[in-house]
């Protein structure tokens, strides 16, 4: 599972507003990359482009040397977990996963759904309960199971822990580390600097649509260092 996700000269404008300006950076398989920045920095636009839902105005995105187009096959390599769970509240946990397993063409879908429900600890008690009745933490666990069903090579997270309690956030950090160890590329967009420091081996800071910081460290980043870098690069006080 090796491959580099590269952005070359990416720009995105919405009307007269420039959300991203000439962004060039790359992400590697087996790393957790945290993308930080204040509101309006372009983080969500970047994630939208990486997920193929937003078309860049200029520039090129490539994965493993191939240009990423908006073709449906590309989306089989991507898993996405947002701050909203992206689930159908009126379906059960099992029905939600079964639906997406079918849409992704997952082989042995029933078995895979059972595996994922086991993994996120929703197998016994809650698998036949309507997802709307789940706590926020349980919904995020189910959302992660949905994102991992098809074993994507790229996992995109948009503020996944924004509504989680500390135990839920800790669980999510463990899962991110597990996916990194499995060789997946994890891109995490967050406002939570401590959460980013806990898991990231690659730190990207955006400011007003431009790249303000981009560095990899195999040993990771310490929380105070991340805070200092964030304040320095975004001029936050």
């Amino acid at each position, binding site marked *: 599972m090796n491959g580099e996700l590269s952005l070359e000269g990416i720009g995105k404008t919405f009307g007269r507003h420039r959300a991203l300006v000439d962004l060039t950076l790359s992400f590697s398989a087996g790393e957790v990359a945290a993308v930080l920045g204040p509101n309006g920095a372009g983080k969500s636009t970047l994630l939208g482009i990486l997920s193929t839902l937003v078309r860049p105005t200029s520039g090129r995105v490539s994965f493993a040397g191939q240009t990423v187009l908006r073709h449906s096959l*590309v989306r089989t390599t991507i898993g996405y977990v947002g701050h909203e769970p992206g689930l159908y509240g009126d379906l059960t946990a099992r029905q939600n996963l079964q639906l997406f397993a*079918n849409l992704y063409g997952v082989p042995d879908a029933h078995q895979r759904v059972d595996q994922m429900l086991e993994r996120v600890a929703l197998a016994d008690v809650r698998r036949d309960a309507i997802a709307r009745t789940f706590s926020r933490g349980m919904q995020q666990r189910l959302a992660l199971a949905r994102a991992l069903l098809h074993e994507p090579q790229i996992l995109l997270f948009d503020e996944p822990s924004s509504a989680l309690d500390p135990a839920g956030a800790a669980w999510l950090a463990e899962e991110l580390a597990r996916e990194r160890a499995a060789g997946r590329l994890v891109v995490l967009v967050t406002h939570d600097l401590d959460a980013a420091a806990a898991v990231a081996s690659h730190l990207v800071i955006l400011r007003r649509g431009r790249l303000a910081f981009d560095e990899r460290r195999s040993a990771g980043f310490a929380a105070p260092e991340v805070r200092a870098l964030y304040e320095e690069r975004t001029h936050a006080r």
Partner: protein
Amino acid sequence: MRARQTTWLRSAAGIAWKDLAIEWHSREIVYTMGFLATLVVLVFSFALVAGQDSKLGPGTIAGILWVAVLFSGTVALSRTFDREREGEAIRSLLLSPVPRSAIYAGKLAATSCIMFFVELVVTPLVGVFFSAPVAEHAAWLALQLLLGTIGFAAAGVVFSAALLRSRSRDALLGALLFPVVVPVLMAGARGTTLLLDAEVPDLDPAVFWTRFLGAVDVIFVAVGVWAFEPVAVGE
């Protein structure tokens, strides 16, 4: 990588199944639609029939039936996309490798099924309240309603997707959709009038309007497939 491309038909069927399964659990749309359609029929029956001895003409009865279908259908369209909006489920759907045209077809099939089910209940009601011979050409009437429903839903699914993130979507949906579906309303009402009119000697004129509805469906579905991706993705 475990995932493989799933077939277009299987994807569309999966999305339609999902909407129908949700509706089976909640019965929310069917009850709301049924209530609204019944209310329309009742209001017209009190407004037009009360105090009169003479029966209404087939044209008026057909018009009432199609107005009930269109008004209640708007509720169905609005609610099916509410389910995509809640929890940002639409994003998960758009991120899946399913072709957008399959998403459109799945939503169209589910909406049409739900609408047609309600029409099967409301049509006999029209027959009872207005003493209309709805059973005389039941198969043709059902076909006209089905084709009209598909045409209405084909346009409606696109508008509902476009208004997914609009705050005033409920008001806007009717305002935008009704002018577009005028051909469906006219052809449906005209065709049904001919079916309900005992003085019309043969079915040929009704067959013409049924074919016309079929042609409108082909155009609306083709335009819907083409228009759905940009409006659903929001570009």
